[in-house]
């Protein structure tokens, strides 16, 4: 919830959104005004959680991003699934930000069961401390994150509490180095 969490080194788009002011500096040439549908989604989330979430921003048509503190993510995810109708995760990715000493984990959620949401991707993101990266797992809400979270664990070293298997998945069985998608891991010769 602290405001400095939203100042990422590459996040010029980060801006706290009130229910009506939705301009982002990112999409200068595309629409500066949030379309009605995405605005409606944002309003629902803001009116439910208010200050508990760090921000909700409109990025592009069909793309909305929420940044929440890690202790709120389970509640926000249940709300997204039960009330808004997003029912599966398309992708879970982690991004390492050594300058902030944080790792961002972002869930791209989509919907098959609600027709109107088929073009929408809701990006639910949270940040973990880099040295003690622990986050609650969303496996009880979205079953589809199972392998994605496991991959994020081995590639970025984020431990998902509540996930049954925080184990090796794609890497070799004798992998004994740091998680490879962290920025301090360098490819040899590069």
């Amino acid at each position, binding site marked *: 919830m602290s405001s400095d969490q939203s100042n990422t080194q590459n996040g010029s*788009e980060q801006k706290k959104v009130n229910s009506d002011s939705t301009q982002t500096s*990112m999409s200068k040439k595309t629409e500066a005004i949030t379309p009605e549908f995405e605005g409606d989604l944002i309003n629902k989330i803001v009116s439910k959680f208010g200050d508990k979430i760090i921000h909700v921003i409109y990025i592009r048509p069909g793309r909305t991003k929420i940044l929440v503190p890690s202790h709120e993510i389970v509640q926000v995810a249940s709300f997204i699934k039960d009330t808004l109708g997003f*029912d599966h995760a*398309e*992708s879970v990715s982690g*991004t390492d930000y050594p300058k902030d000493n944080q790792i961002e984990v972002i869930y791209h959620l989509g919907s098959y069961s609600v027709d109107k949401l088929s073009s929408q*991707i809701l990006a639910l993101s949270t940040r973990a401390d880099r040295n003690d990266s622990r986050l609650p797992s969303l496996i009880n809400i979205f*079953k589809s994150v199972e392998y994605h979270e496991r991959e994020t664990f081995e590639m970025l070293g984020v431990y998902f509490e509540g996930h049954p298997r925080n184990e090796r998945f*794609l890497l070799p069985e004798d992998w004994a180095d740091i998680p490879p998608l962290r920025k301090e891991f360098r490819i040899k010769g*590069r």
Partner: protein
Amino acid sequence: MDNLEQKFNETIKMGLDIVKETEEDRLMTLSVGPQHPGSGHFRFTIKVDGDYIVYCDPDPGYVHRGEEKMCEYRNFIQNIPHLERPIIHDSTNITYSYSLAVEELANIQVPLRGQYIRALASELNRQVYTLYWLAIYGIFLGHSTMFMWPMGDRELFIDLLEALTGARVTHAFNIPGGVRNDVPEGFRDRCLRQVAYFEKRLTEYEDIFYNNPLFRQRTEGVGILTKDNAIKLGVTGSVLRASGIPFDVRKAEPYDIYNEIDFKIQYMKTCDSFARSTVPFLDMKESCHIIRQLLDKMPKSGEVRAKLQPNPKGPPGESYKRVESGRGALGYYIVSDGTPKPYRVKISVGSFRNMLALPFLLIGSKLADMPSIYWSLNYWPVEADR
């Protein structure tokens, strides 16, 4: 009986334990793969109790190349040739969503003719992939004709793509801003002729394979993935559409010129292996229809790619773009920090997402049904590993 008790007593006198049968003794652990006994470069461990599979644990990663890490060392254009390696048979589609995402980040407008050529190459490449998949599906169900025919007919589309892109398999054709080169002379007629021939062949496929009673017995009612479970597991592509959910990215979120193309989403409601193997076949038919429309509606002349700076880059930001590939939605999540190299690239591929359905479907089914379930998932191990 006396004899047996006598033997027991003797062994007890000798100080040996009598080992009774436990549950672990009943189960046999089998390792399927990775040396390709019908699994691709992929291993999964199964436990069988008699004829039934009671445990399944996928173990991917034998062809993990670290594509996502490699992207961070190269600029947006240099990334294209290595990004198509995970799925060389569908290389146009895997670079398609990458190009879309980079275009969004760097704010590049693609000329109309370029958009049409891109969609055309993507449809042709989808046919190549689906035919390859169908050939493998055929041979692992023991139908060797169904291996030969699609492999042969696949050459038609490979020849077309060779004329279009200059390479037979790895095209590196899509780039941010359009396509690398224009359509050669006489391509339209050649393409129409081959598509017409291929459509005739498809009816023959139907006769020899899909209406074959043996094939039907092995696939109908096998590996049921209900609609609710398909949503819960978040599967995509033909697996999803076979479970009765008409979802196709080309319709759900049309990219480039797909909103001007008239086509139907092919889906089935039987939820079994037969549906999962038939939906790609129906997609091939629909794809022929799309190819004809693309050739008709394509502008006769014009630029095929936008003029780019030597090192295209955009303002800091992020982008998530997806296309419909041969294996379902294929999304790229790209974070840019304003430099010509991406800060983070995540590839969300259909194969990786469909892998979750594998243990779900295999547990409780017969060992003999394993090939028909496994290959019906439209799973490509190399793509899943990235």
